[in-house]
């Protein structure tokens, strides 16, 4: 196993809510940043690096400076990470790389969002808006539905195989009181009985958009005097292949395949050694494809893997299918849960002897991918 090249020393997460009234994105960023820095046992002045998401609230440009000013920070490294659901994972290795380059010592990576009851429509003026939307394909449901449909048509996978993923997420959410679907389990039959939104995707296979936030504090692996057991960054991989699904090189394998391979190679780990699978799950199909791209299941055979695996260790917090998707912070929740598990003291759902975690982030339509291998210290 290689030397760690960074450590996550603080985490913060907001309990998701379906919608907010009058909240601002900046305000929610501040709330979750406070939690993460307090968890690390640091004073705000210790933060000298800042990574934020794009288009924060009404701030399309100068986002790092706006957030830094709001938080009273004067970072020596500041940037936007704009990789959709892969943004959180993309932040973690960038933070470690900036620290290794000597640019800063302690980086706050933060994502949060408010959500009005009726969110405004996207102002996109890009090829997707010009060449997809006019044909009746607005939004991610339509495109992820086509990824699932291709899997079913090519491999003969069954709707019930995909429903297992959603049912497992709901089951794990019963051990997370913060999850949107805590107290609301759903069986495979319930998933299959939920309304078809865009065939073959049913409602319960689709994340619920919520308001929330998540943040981590990244430091060098050698930093001393921590409040929490450090969780080491052992490997990372990233790949971006397209934006619109029509331009994807494959509908059955995504950029997470090379990203996971690189992350595992950097960590000197095999996929079979991973204890915690914190896999980005905006839709059931995303988990199916990731299990196959990670090499856990042969192409087309994720269902076989699911029926034999211990699904408690697949997104123990319920995944986004069980927890809710607070916009870009949804991807960060997979990191926060992996850190909790590797610290070894997660209430209600600690996986025994959790030493290694694979975290995946996925953005746009299986377009932007980042994978992290995290490990418990010592």
């Amino acid at each position: 196993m290689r030397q760690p090249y960074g450590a996550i020393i603080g985490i913060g997460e907001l309990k998701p809510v379906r919608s907010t009234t009058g909240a601002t994105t900046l305000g929610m960023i501040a709330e979750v940043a406070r939690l993460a820095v307090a968890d690390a046992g640091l004073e705000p002045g210790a933060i000298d690096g800042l990574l934020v998401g794009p288009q924060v609230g009404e701030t399309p440009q100068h986002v790092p400076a706006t957030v830094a000013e709001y938080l009273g920070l004067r970072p020596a490294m500041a940037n936007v990470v704009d990789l959709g659901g892969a943004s959180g994972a993309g932040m973690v290795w960038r933070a470690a790389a900036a620290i290794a380059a000597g640019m800063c010592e302690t980086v706050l990576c933060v994502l949060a969002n408010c959500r009005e009851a009726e969110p405004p429509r996207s102002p996109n003026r890009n090829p997707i808006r010009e060449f997809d939307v006019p044909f009746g394909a607005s939004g991610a449901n339509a495109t992820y539905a086509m990824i699932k449909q291709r899997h079913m048509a090519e491999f003969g996978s069954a709707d019930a195989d995909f429903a297992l993923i959603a049912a497992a997420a709901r089951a794990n959410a019963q051990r997370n009181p913060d999850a949107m679907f805590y107290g609301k389990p759903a069986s495979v039959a319930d998933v299959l009985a939920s309304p078809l939104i865009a065939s073959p995707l049913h409602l319960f296979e689709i994340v619920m958009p919520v308001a929330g936030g998540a943040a981590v504090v990244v430091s060098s692996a050698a930093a001393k005097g921590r409040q929490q057991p450090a969780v080491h960054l052992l490997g990372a991989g990233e790949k971006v292949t397209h934006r619109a699904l029509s331009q994807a090189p494959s509908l059955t394998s995504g950029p997470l395949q090379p990203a996971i391979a690189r992350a595992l190679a950097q960590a000197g780990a095999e996929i079979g050694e991973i204890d915690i699978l914190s896999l980005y799950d905006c839709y059931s199909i995303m988990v199916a494809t990731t299990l196959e791209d990670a090499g856990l299941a042969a192409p087309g055979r994720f269902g076989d893997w699911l029926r034999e695996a211990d699904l408690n260790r697949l997104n123990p917090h319920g995944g986004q299918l069980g927890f809710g998707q607070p916009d870009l912070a949804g991807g960060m929740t997979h990191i926060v849960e992996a850190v909790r598990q590797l610290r070894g003291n997660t209430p209600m759902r600690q996986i025994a002897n959790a030493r290694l975690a694979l975290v995946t982030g996925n953005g746009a339509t299986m377009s932007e991918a980042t994978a992290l291998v995290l490990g418990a210290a010592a």
Partner: protein
Amino acid sequence: MNLSELKVPGPTRTALTAPFWTAAAEGRFIVQHCADCASWVFYPRQICPHCWSQRLEWREASGRARLESWSVIHRPGHPGWEPAAPYAIGIVRLAEGPSMLSHILTADPQLHLPLQVRFTQVGAEILPCFEPADE
């Protein structure tokens, strides 16, 4: 459902892409072709994404394609499409090579189904939709 009655967003043309939509309105299916590497390119771009040549030229394409995947939309992402639901969209692989997303005019979509372009008025615009073709 007559798609021409929909109140839906049409293409957001740019100077570069306008010839594609203008041709579609005339019932012609044109696609960019690279004079240097001979690739066909969709969607229209300023340079060839395969070899970065600037010599992209509009050519008539066959309008033949095969269905790579599809979805029947029951809850459209845009409210203007609700009167048409359920309807099918798909990823089509043009005979010339590139793939595009389109509206699929069939109740029985299948993997690799042969398709032919069918210019169809959707809202105020004429768009290259696809329908099943004879082999």
